[in-house]
Structures are given as C-alpha cells and as structure tokens.
C-alpha cells in the first residue's frame, strides 16, 4: 500500500497535475515521452524507454541537445544504483598553447562557439552502454521512434521555438547550422513542421551498428573530415578511444534520505554540499516560501559553489577530493559561516592539498532511470556535421586555459574531461530507491535540486508543487535572480538582508526545468508519482 509523504494541494499557479502510473516517462517534450512509452508497451524496460526518449529528444529539442551531446545517468536496476559518466574528453591535440596560438595570449577559455569548442561527444556511447548492460529490447528498436520523427518531422512547440529564434542571430554563420536548423533561411515559427533527414541517416547508422558508426565507422569519418575542413582538432583516434565510465555515485544524507549525484567532473557535488550544510538548520520549522526559508538555502548554495568553482574538474586533476568536500565536519564549519540576517559573498574554504535535457523513466519491475543529455549552451557549438546531422556540443568552453585562473585543476589538457554542469540525481532511503529526478539548466541545476528537495522533504510538497514553486537563481556576488511569481513580502525581506534581487521578466532566462519520478511503494502495485516542469513543453506520461 502506498504511503506518500505529501500534501497534494498545489498552492502555485501551474498547468500540470502529478501523474500516477506504474510505468512512466517524464521529459521536456511530448514526442520524447511518447517514444519512451512505445518501448514500455513493446515490453521494454525503463532503460529502453530512457534511451528511446533521449534519441528522440535530440531531434525534437535541438535547442538543448543533439547527436553530438554528452550524457550522464544514474539508474536503479532493481537492486542497486549505478552511475554513468559519458562526458567526452578534450581531443589529443588540445593544450593551452593550442588555444593561445589560435586565439591570442589573453584568451582565458576555449571559444564559446565553433569547432574549437567541441570535445568528444559521449551521448551515443552512453545509449549503447546502457542498452548493452541493462536494456531488454534490441538497440535498433530504441532508435526507431527518433528516426521516424526526424523523417516525418514535427510541429514546433512554443518554448522550443522561442529558444530557437533567440539563438539564431548568434549561430547562423557557424558551419552547418543554417543548413540544418534554418530550413527556410530563418528559424521556424510555432507550429511549423521541422524535419531532419540528415539526422535520420545518422540515427540509422547508429541503430545498425549499436553506436559504433559514431566512434569508428562512417559517422566518425564524417566528423573528422568536418572538423578538419573547419580548422578543428578532433581526430579519428580521439573518437575511437572514447569509452563511457561506470562510476559509483557520491552521496549525502538529508532528513533521513540519501541524495546521490555523479562525482566530478560534474557539479552535482554542489547540491550535496549545500544539503549537508542545510542539515544543520531546521528548515521544516520555517514558514514555507518565507524569507528565512529561502535565505538559508541561498547562502548554503553560495558556499557550495565557492568551493565547486574553485576545485571541481577531472577527478585525477583535482587538488582536493570529493570526500574532502563532503566531509561532515567541513560542511558543519561552512554552515557556521551563514548569517541568517544578511546576504554574504563567500570565498572557497580551507581544504587540505584534490544546454540540457533531463528525462526520467521508471517501470513496474522497479527499474528507474535518471538521465541527462546536453549540448551545453543551447545548440552548443553551432557546428552541425551536415551529412549525418550531428549537432555538436560546446563543452570545451568549460575548460580554463590558465594555471593562475579561478580553477587551476580545470585547465585544458589532452584527453582530459572538462568541468561539467549536467547532473542527474537520485534519492534513496535506507538503501531503497525513492526518486529519480533532475532540474536542467547550467548552474541552475544544483540549485534546482536543493530547492525542490527541501520542498519535498522538509515541507512535504508533492512533486508537481515543488516543481511549480517560484525559484531563485544565484549567479555571482550578491546578485540573485528570482522569477516574477516570487511572493512580494519575501522579496522585500530578502532585499532587506542585502540580497541584490533582480526579478527576471525575460522569459528566455532559465530557472531550470525539472522532471521527477517518485516511487510510491511497490512499483507493480502502487507505481510512481511523476511531475514535469511547466517551464518547458514537456510532460509526464504513463500507464
């Protein structure tokens, strides 16, 4: 029998109701949710559903990801948790000197757009690895919905169209972008049909070879030729050498639950650190949505980011370890720096010398998948290999170039993975799975994890309400962005504490988009409660 620890009243204006089902897929695009459901109907499991949805969404949400994305996953296989880091490394030819030579001695990072922002894309390898180890259906079946969508086309929904139009001026001159994404010389309008035959070709090659075409076969050759033609450094050896990495997730206790994130090079550790600090405050006793409720979370998040931006990189390069960052004594000391009455700017602590879609799927056998995939900044590099429709990420921009920069461990080097922003999350309780979730949106991600978890675990808001509630976003210094629906009294009180609050009127500014699947009990009987963020076009769908 299901005992859900939620108040199901939703006090926020939103457009969704939570979905109760025993097989469910929750994504930011309806067609991706359909793709996942198709696999479940065909007898597939949650991993099959997640992969099919992920492939479909490279076509339906190119403003966030593509075939040239990176990906991460945390999944519960019915008995234990597994983590997958499929973020690609820097090409072997990359070094600080490479960028200084091409972009000048004063460059601080690789470029934001263009072929020199592209690291080895890991998403396709993630699909293959997950399917091989945990999937039930043939890999080729998982690609089928995406192929059909790419060939048949789809009608552009509202939020995707807005982001597409906004990105066009900056990217329209990048190699392959206009050919792929400006079919009539302009961004498509809402409701116009967009198809992507080149990507259908790419997906068919991926389907037939279980992804090897991308790293060793015809797609790899096309990518190398494309990079070379445009002055990039990606080589056949770089692609052929890539393997995704199975990892043990890192964890943090919070209110009797355990929160799991992928370890560095990802930033999920920021959420864990903030929660570790917040454990020392009685958030449940604070009035929901009031100034104290928000202020403590904001300050904890700033403290966490201060360390994460200073230290997190490829694990082998870090001067401090994840264990050190999560040391309970250290987090208690950091929490002690929080002043409940005023906003502060924090520096990193004293430690000894270490553009995104998120989707979630769960089935009635109890398998739960938390999966995230991204081209980093919107469309990413803007470069699209034309024959196979490979839209390439710009994750390379996440590296630094200078040893005297803010994060020396994150300086670019051959074969090294950059600091990574995309983070799937998972919640367990006493070793049993509870929730697969994520909130996508660059630096909003750990902040979104913290805000939604505190609402669910401290104040028992149901997942859709926790998702709908207005959010804040910390960027830097004392500046704080809030959504327009933020309560006026709380806003006033935060201003009084010294937060430099800016109410964001621009609907393109991202406060994240989340998907949540909470296990209600026995999955075959009680199923799951799923929520999908109204801030994107998606839905949670299930049966």
């Amino acid at each position, binding site marked *: 029998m299901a005992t859900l620890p939620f108040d199901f009243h939703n006090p926020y204006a939103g457009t969704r109701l939570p979905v109760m089902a025993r097989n469910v897929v929750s994504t930011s695009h309806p067609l991706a949710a359909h793709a996942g459901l198709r696999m479940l109907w065909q007898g597939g499991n949650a991993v099959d559903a997640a992969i099919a949805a992920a492939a479909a969404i490279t076509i339906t949400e190119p403003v966030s990801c593509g075939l040239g994305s990176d990906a991460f996953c945390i999944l519960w296989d019915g008995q234990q948790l597994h983590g997958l880091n499929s973020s690609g490394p820097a090409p072997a030819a990359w070094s600080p000197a490479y960028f200084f030579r091409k972009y000048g001695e004063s460059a601080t990072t690789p470029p934001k757009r263009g072929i020199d922002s592209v690291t080895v894309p890991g998403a396709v390898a993630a699909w293959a690895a997950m399917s091989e180890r945990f999937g039930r259906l043939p890999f080729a079946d998982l690609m089928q919905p995406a192929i059909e969508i790419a060939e048949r086309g789809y009608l552009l929904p509202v939020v995707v169209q807005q982001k597409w139009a906004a990105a066009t001026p900056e990217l329209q001159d990048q190699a392959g972008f206009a050919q792929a994404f400006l079919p009539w010389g302009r961004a498509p309008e809402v409701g116009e049909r967009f198809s992507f035959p080149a990507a259908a070709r790419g997906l068919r090659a991926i389907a037939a070879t279980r992804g090897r075409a991308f790293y060793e076969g015809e797609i790899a050759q096309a990518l190398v030729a494309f990079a070379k033609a445009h002055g990039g450094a990606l080589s056949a050896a770089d692609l052929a050498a890539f393997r995704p990495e199975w990892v043990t997730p890192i964890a943090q206790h919070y209110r009797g639950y355990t929160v799991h994130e992928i370890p560095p090079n990802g930033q999920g550790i920021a959420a864990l650190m903030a929660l570790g600090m917040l454990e020392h405050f009685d958030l449940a006793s604070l009035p929901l949505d009031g100034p104290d409720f928000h202020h403590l979370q904001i300050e904890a998040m700033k403290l966490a980011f201060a360390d994460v931006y200073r230290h997190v990189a490829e694990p082998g390069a870090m001067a401090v370890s994840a264990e050190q960052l999560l040391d309970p004594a250290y987090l208690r000391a950091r929490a002690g720096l929080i002043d409940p009455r005023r906003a502060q700017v924090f520096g990193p602590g004293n430690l000894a010398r270490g553009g995104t879609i998120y989707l979630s799927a769960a089935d009635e056998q109890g398998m739960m998948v938390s999966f995230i995939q991204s081209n980093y900044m919107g469309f990413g590099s803007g470069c699209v290999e034309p024959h196979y429709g490979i839209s390439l990420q710009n994750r390379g921009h996440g590296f630094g170039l200078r040893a005297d920069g803010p994060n020396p461990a994150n300086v670019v080097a051959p074969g090294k993975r950059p600091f990574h922003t995309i983070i799937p999350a998972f919640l367990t309780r006493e070793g049993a799975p509870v929730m697969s979730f994520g909130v996508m949106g660059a630096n909003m991600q750990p902040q979104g994890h913290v805000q939604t978890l505190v609402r669910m675990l401290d104040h028992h808001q149901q997942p859709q309400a926790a998702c709908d509630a207005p959010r804040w976003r910390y960027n830097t210094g004392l500046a704080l962005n809030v959504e*327009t629906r*933020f309560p*006026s*009294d709380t*806003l*006033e009180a935060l*201003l009084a504490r010294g937060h*430099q*609050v*800016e*109410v964001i*009127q621009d609907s393109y500014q991202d406060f994240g988009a989340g998907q949540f699947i909470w296990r209600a009990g026995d999955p075959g009987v009680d199923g799951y409660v799923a929520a999908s963020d109204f801030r994107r076009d998606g839905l949670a769908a299930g049966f």
Partner: protein
Amino acid sequence: MWLRVISAATVWPRVFDPARLRRSRALRLCAVSLGGLLGLGAALAQVDAPIEPEAASGRQSAREQFHARHAAATAHPLASAAALEILRAGGNALDAAIAAQWVLGLVEPQSSGIGGGGFLVLGEPGGRVRTYDGRETAPALADEALFLQADGQPLPFRAAAVGGRAVGVPGLVRMLAQAHREAGRLPWARLFEPAIRLAQEGFAVTPRLHTLLGMAPELRRDPEARALYFQEDGTPHPVGFRLRNPALAQTYRQLARSRGEALYRGAMAKAIVDKVQHHPDNPGRLRRADLAQYTPLAREPLCFDWRAQAQTYRVCGMGLPSSGTVTLAQILGLLVAARAEPQWQERPQADWLFTYSEIARLAYADRAFYLADPAFVPPPGGRVQTLWQPDYLAQRARLLGPQRLPVVEPGQPLGVRPPLAYGSDSTERGTSHLSVVDAQGLAVSLTSSIEDAFGARIMVGGFLLNNQLTDFNFQPRDAQGRPSANRLEPGKRPRSSMAPLIVYDAQGQIMQVLGSPGGALIIHYVAKTLLATLQAGLSPQAAIALPNFATVGGPLLLETGAYPELRAELAARGVPLQDVALTSGVQVLQRVPRGWLGASDPRREGVVAGD
C-alpha cells in the same frame, strides 16, 4: 443644415487654402497673447475642487506646419527640438518620442516624467499596431480602503494626492525600455543626450511653468523641489530664468547606463521608497519589492471602425485599463446610431451639441460602471467590444429624447447587470501627449502622466513622483457592499482616460496621430479633433482652436465664454451649463499629400517641429 461635400482627395474645406500655409523649418517659441489670459481667472476660482488637472495659463498664437519627411508635435518647444534632433540623427519615431519624453520630464515637470506612467501606441505603415502599457500599479500593501477616513468617508482630494499615500509604482521607464528593445533603432543611451544637456546647461522657465508653480504651495514643502523651483522668498523663479536640474541629469545618466533599471533597483529605488514611506504628513506603502516586480505589458491594441463622410477609418489606441479608446468608440458609434452628423458650419450647432452631450453622459455611465484593469475585472462578456456592438448602441440611442434625460444609468450589453457598484468618477490629471512620425512612416502616439499637476509633490533625484492611485475610486463599495470595478486592489492598474490614437484610412495608411492631456475630458478633446477634421473637414489647427466642450455625466462644460449663441437653446432643453477653462493639449499630425500637417494646442506651450 449645411452638408459639407468632401472630395476624395482632400478633407479640407473650401475656405482652407493649403497654399497659404507657412512652411517653416525653424522652431518658434510663441508669445502669450494678452487675450488668452482671460482663462486664468476662471482657473483660479476652482483651486479646491478642480475638474481639471492643470490650470490654464493663457493662449499662444499658433500655426500649423507642413513637413515632408518627419515631424513631432509635443507640448514644449525643447521637447519637439529634441525629437527633431534624434530624427535627423537617424533615429526612428520611437527613438524621437522617447528622447522628447525625457525632455518633457525636465521642462514640463508638472505633467509627466519618469516618476509616473503612460501608454504608447506604435503604428507601422502597413497597419500593424502595437500598444505598450506603462501604467502605474498599486503597491502590494495598498488596499481598497486607502482613501477612506476612519468614518468611512472618502478623503478630500488634496489630502489623498499630496504625499506618499497615492504614489503608484512608476511604469513609464520600464515600458519605454521594453518598446525600445523591440522597435528602437538608435542606442538607448543616445536618447538621453538632449535631456541631459538641457538639465546641465539649464532651460528658460516658461510662462506656463511659472504660473503653475505659483499655484502649487504644497510643492514648497518638499525640500528638494523647493530648492530647485523656488527663490529664497518662496516665490517661483521668474519667466526666463535659466533653470538647471543637475540631479535629474545624473538620474538620466544612470538610466542611460542601466537601460532604465536603475529606477527599479539599488540606491534610486531605495530613495524613492524612503521618501514615500517617510513622508512627514501622508506616508505611503510603496516597497522595493513593488519596484523590482513592476512589469510593463505589451497589449493587443484596441481598434474600431468609424465611418465619417463616406470614408471608413480604423481608429486604434490603448485598450483597458484605459477607458480612452473604449469610451471614444461608444461616443462616435452612438453619434452614428443617433444619425447626428456634425452640423457644423465653422462650429457645432445647438442641436448637435445637445445630442453629443446626452450621448456622452450615456458613455460615461458605462465607463464608470464597467471599465477597469482587465486583469482584475473582465469587461462585459470578456470583450470590451460588447460595449459598442450595433445592437447595444441602438438600444442606448433609443433612450435619447428632445429634452435632457433626468437620470442616466449604465447599460447592460449582455442583458444582465453584474454585481458591481457604480463607481463615482475620479478624474485624472497632469498629463502630456506627443505625436511623432518618421520618414519610413512609423508613427508614435504617447500620452504620459504623473496624475495631478506636480504629482504627489515629492521630488527624488530631480523628478517628481506620481499620485496616480487617486485614479482609483476612493469609495470601493456601495451601501450594499457591492464592489466598484475601479476600486483599488494590490498590484492593480487604476483606470485611465488617456487616449493616444493612430487613425488609419481604408487603404491602411496612417491618417492621423493624436492625443491630449486633460483627465477624464481627454476623450472629448480627441473626439472633437476627430469630428472636426475627418467629419467636418476643418484643418487640424482650426479643429483644435474650436472651443472645447465636455461632460462627465453632470452639466455640459463649455470653455469659458464659448458658444454664446447656443446657450439659450441648450438651456431650453434642460441642459445645465458650466464655464470651465478646459485646458486641452492636443498634439496632432495629419497626413496630407506629400507630407504631414502638424498642429499643437495653443492652450499649452507646444509646437510642431520637423523637416
């Protein structure tokens, strides 16, 4: 009755010869004519219970001007000059209008400025219209009883308006920033240059400013305003005095750098809130969160068709929360339904004026009952167009008779009476209008306001704060407890009468760009201008020069001493008459072959500038 026959090529009457128009490229500051001072006495008599926001200060002699390429009509020569500077620098009509608005806040501070709000209508040559709502909102902590005394009686107007109590969240700056982001051409900061220069170097105090300062003793109680506008002995600076406003120059520099956001955040926001909350006599409830959260709105324009002299025009303007376009649509529609073409030779005849007065009473009754911020109070049937459906207008027109109606009630466009209270009409005040067209045919019609003359009489950073909340009904409910549509609610915009308009002809070409200040009487001033030009064929300047007439439901107001030949017949039909200064400020640009004819109301100090 003399039916004027108008040819398709021109709407000018036979007596008006365009060849006699003086074509001028230069600006002229017009002198006050002695005869115009007649208006002043009548205005002084009404100090405590004004119908009108701004008193009369005399009349100028004025001539309309022809310009071939671009033109701007504003309420002050320096503002028109700024608009022209920007147009010549390659700015479009929106750039020019914004630059002019910043200058108006400096040189016509009693009427509008960054401490207030406004409505902008942007008309493209093809017929596409956009409207932007920068109306002030009520603070989150304000409530419907804000203007009631302990005994439940409404406060006297001055007690409500002067001080922090009635200050609404200023919307003009964020609204213009949004419009500029979408449709401006020159960089935002460039648009502040004329105003910053004038604020630093100083401008000459005009007769109108000097006169109005002399009638604003409460303004002297604000230390910053006192230091700026008044001499040691408390009298205002004389006409011609070079007035510098360095504080406003600094404020404008910050707005230029921050895309206007400096008003809503940081030190300036705090300064505004502090002055409002700590006003010594009449504190208000504005908070920094109110400023941070203010959102301008890009609204669907409100357009209606109007048939005049066998031509169909499309009149476009701001919809709710302004009543301007709605009530105008009703008045013009009722005139057609009542078959009352203006029977004018050079001016209205008694029969027509009687009908107009009765029709206006019907329209204003609906206005008082139905019209408010649509986010809080939906119009009848969810669409304000129900108020001028032909069936409904015919029904209302059938009420008219040969004698004045003793009582006028709001109508029921849907056949049922909603559970609202009939809200007593509060009138809107200190306001300015400007009209601009550019060489590409883009047109801007902008009316902006700080409510009363000199607003709340609170000065911050060189500008005055609005008292726009007095545009809500002071009495929120009737004796049965039913709420009025225009009662104050947190976050709500007060109903306005502002009517910035763009009129298109049947071919989709812009015909006229017009508007006026004047509180609830704005609607009459623009109605008169439209009827006189497009129906009766007068030139724009002649139309504006016609004596004003208006009503808000009670007596028919006539511009002081006007229409003596009509008064006996009107009285015989039961119409009570009242002489009022009726200080309109119409600024109109009318399209003519090969260019634009601009006219500026002689009752204020405006001029038309252009090339």
